[in-house]
């Protein structure tokens, strides 16, 4: 029994690393750029397909693929923010209205990106193994690629945290997260910094997608589930709070693994929702304080 619990903890943390990685990008997009992006998970799936294609067709390793996929995602998200979402930002006269508009616009975007993936790749599942070398940690057999994803998540979290709290641009981004109108008054270029935060979020999720594709079976319709989990991690972790996203992402991984091992693998989403409900009932403002305060 203790062995099983340890096993759950270790594999849960590794799964949680993936959730944390993909949630950090969303916390930037929603916390700073104030875009509730429902198409977020589609970019994860998109990057996974790119990595798959590079590996199977061009024989480029996914780790090298990162160098290609991440800047591409950055550019794509920059363009989306600039041309698709900026009109909504200027049109909205309150934060609530921007939320409503961005939910609707990205809901449409979700179906467009998903539709393109469906046209190219169809509805079937894809997978390829890369770095699937078993490693034993505390008696639990884990694949190297999963551990790599966890390490990457922790590194990104530390790097982002450092960047946001120790640099000038990071301070500007945090100021925007608190109040975009006030940030403008102290000579911060809000549109540019918001676009940067949004694009950076998109780049992070693409990195997550490439890493996840090394060990997860994926298909064109799977983005929604990732979006949902990331959204819940962001809300519970506090908007724009990088460390909150890391902690809640890891916790979600452990909770899901427990449910899937001890109860039923089919109920993982119910577990996510239970976490969400409990968090909302206990602390409607988020478990962790937002970046704002």
């Amino acid at each position, binding site marked *: 029994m203790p062995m099983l619990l340890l096993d759950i903890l270790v594999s849960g943390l590794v799964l949680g690393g993936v959730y944390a990685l993909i949630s950090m990008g969303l916390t930037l997009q929603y916390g700073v750029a104030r875009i509730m992006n429902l198409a977020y998970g589609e970019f994860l799936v998109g990057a996974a397909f790119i990595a798959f294609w590079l590996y199977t067709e061009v024989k480029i390793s996914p780790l090298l693929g990162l160098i290609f996929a991440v800047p591409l995602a950055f550019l794509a998200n920059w363009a989306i923010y600039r041309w698709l979402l900026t009109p909504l930002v200027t049109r909205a006269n309150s934060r609530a209205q921007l939320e409503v508009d961005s939910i609707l*616009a990205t809901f449409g975007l979700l179906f467009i990106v998903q*539709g393109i993936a469906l046209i190219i790749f169809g509805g079937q599942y894809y997978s390829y193994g890369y770095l699937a070398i078993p490693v034993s940690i505390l008696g639990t057999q884990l694949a190297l690629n999963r551990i790599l994803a966890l390490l990457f998540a922790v590194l990104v979290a530390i790097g982002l945290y450092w960047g946001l709290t120790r640099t000038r641009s990071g301070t500007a981004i945090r100021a925007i997260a608190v109040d975009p109108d006030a940030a403008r008054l102290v000579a911060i270029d809000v549109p540019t910094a918001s676009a940067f935060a949004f694009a950076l979020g998109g780049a992070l999720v693409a990195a997550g997608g490439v890493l996840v594709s090394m060990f997860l079976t994926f298909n064109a319709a799977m983005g929604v589930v990732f979006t949902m989990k990331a959204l819940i991690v962001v*809300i519970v972790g506090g908007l724009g709070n990088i460390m909150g996203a890391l902690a809640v992402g890891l916790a979600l991984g452990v909770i899901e693994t427990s449910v899937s091992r001890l109860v039923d693998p089919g109920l*993982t989403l119910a577990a996510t929702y239970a976490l969400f409900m409990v968090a909302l*009932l206990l602390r409607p403002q988020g478990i962790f304080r937002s970046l704002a305060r």
Partner: protein
Amino acid sequence: MSLKHAPLIALGLVGALLLAGLPLLASGYVLALAISMLSFTALATAWSLFCGPTHYISLASAAFFGLGAYMAAIFAEQVPWVIVLFIAAGAGLAVALVVGLSTLRLSGVYFAIFTFGLAELVRQLVVWYEVNIKGTMGRYLFLDMSQAAIYWQLLALTAATLAVSWLVGRSRLGLAARVIGDDEVVARHSGIDTTRVKVVLFALSCAIMALTGAIMAPRWTYIDPAIAFNPMISFQVVIMALLGGAGALFGPALGAIPLVVLFELLTANFPNAFSVLLGIAFIVIVYGLPRGVIGLLHDWSPRRERPRLATPAPFASQTSILAVDGLHKSFGGLRAVDDVSFRVELGEIVGLIGPNGSGKTTVLNLISGALRPDAGQIRFEGRSIDKAQPYRIAMGGIARTFQLVRVLPSMSLRDNISPSLAFRAIPATGCSADVATDRLLQRVGLHHCSETRAAELTYIDQKRLELARALALQPKLLLLDEWLAGLNPTELEEGISLIQSLRHDGVSIVMVEHVMHAIRALCDRCVVMSAGRVIAAGVPHHALCEPEVVRAYLGEADA
């Protein structure tokens, strides 16, 4: 109902007969298309019933549609069809209540996120139940029901949904929902139980969606969770309601009918690109038609309510109308309000003054119920109100204005005031409400523009409107938060005499104010706060001379 409506009624009757007779005339293909149109009209109208006025976004139509379909699949062979429909509606209602009660107390974005995954969640739970309890996936539904029977049921349901939507739009419930959509805080302080309004409308809308699912179920002979909980349905419903315009009665129908035809063409001609084209259509609608086709056609006129007699407010006869004792409130480490006690006698004007950040607005927020005190008691007319909801307090007779003015920007001046009239302890509706509205607008000097949208007013006029809205509650106690700030000297004198006239009407007032001239002119007593504590109280002239008060305002040197 007057004679001039007769042609319209006749037209409606002919239309209804034609619609009802369609199955006898049309071919199978046309009938199938009509069924599709009706079911989406019912779904989109039901969606707009809740989401239209409140501006909350539900992405969970598929969850309730699928739930209804599944209930039909489970019970169709065991009980009569009518009972199946009741079970389906009941199941939709029950799930909606659980979801609504847990998420609708919070801000709209949590609700949207929750509903975003709800269909997938319900699907997982159904799959889990089917696999673990029943042992197999999917169900066969052998029901001898003709296309015509499905069509007639849907026609009845759609008509009923439109009727419900029309009735809600005319009722206090609909008015409350529109106020929530414009500003939820204002709604709460106008006497509206916002959670109840939202949960009731959401549950109603979901029950209709579940019924639609149940009626549509016999069209499939085999149902499994992937078919019933198809997320595309949620998407289609939102796009239809938005295209037509979710704020108007026939808006959703106007969106559903052309889009069903469009979807039909798309699936027939571009089956692979369906999703992409749908997404593009959706974005075009969100950008190009934010208020739907209906919004393009006209700005719908404000609705009038049925006349009803208003009764005068009962006469209150206690002396101490408000008693605040030992009030505490902290935000994190900051003690915003620290052991504050004071009393307001009937008919008195009490000034609450002090430097910025001394906790004056927090005290008003505690009295009006926007915040809960950490400790201490607030009694209004002898009853404890420190645990009451804001809407209860507003109904009980405490009205407030906000330091940063809050009006319902997209509604007319008249509609800004009518919620308070409709939700106060003794509601006024219809003609008496119109008369009361005119009188209130006259009183604050806005009678010349009662149909203007509140957003178009100047800041000062918005403040006036806010006061009229507060007065519409027939308050016994009025909380004014820097209502005189920002007025020019002439306006200031007008404002002072307006407040003076309220005192003659028997309204007691607590006013937070920095304009000392006004404090001296109006207040019987004042309470001076600094750093969360009461440092002086008494007649303005004396209280303002106390050394501690001078120190708080001007610093040590002048004390």
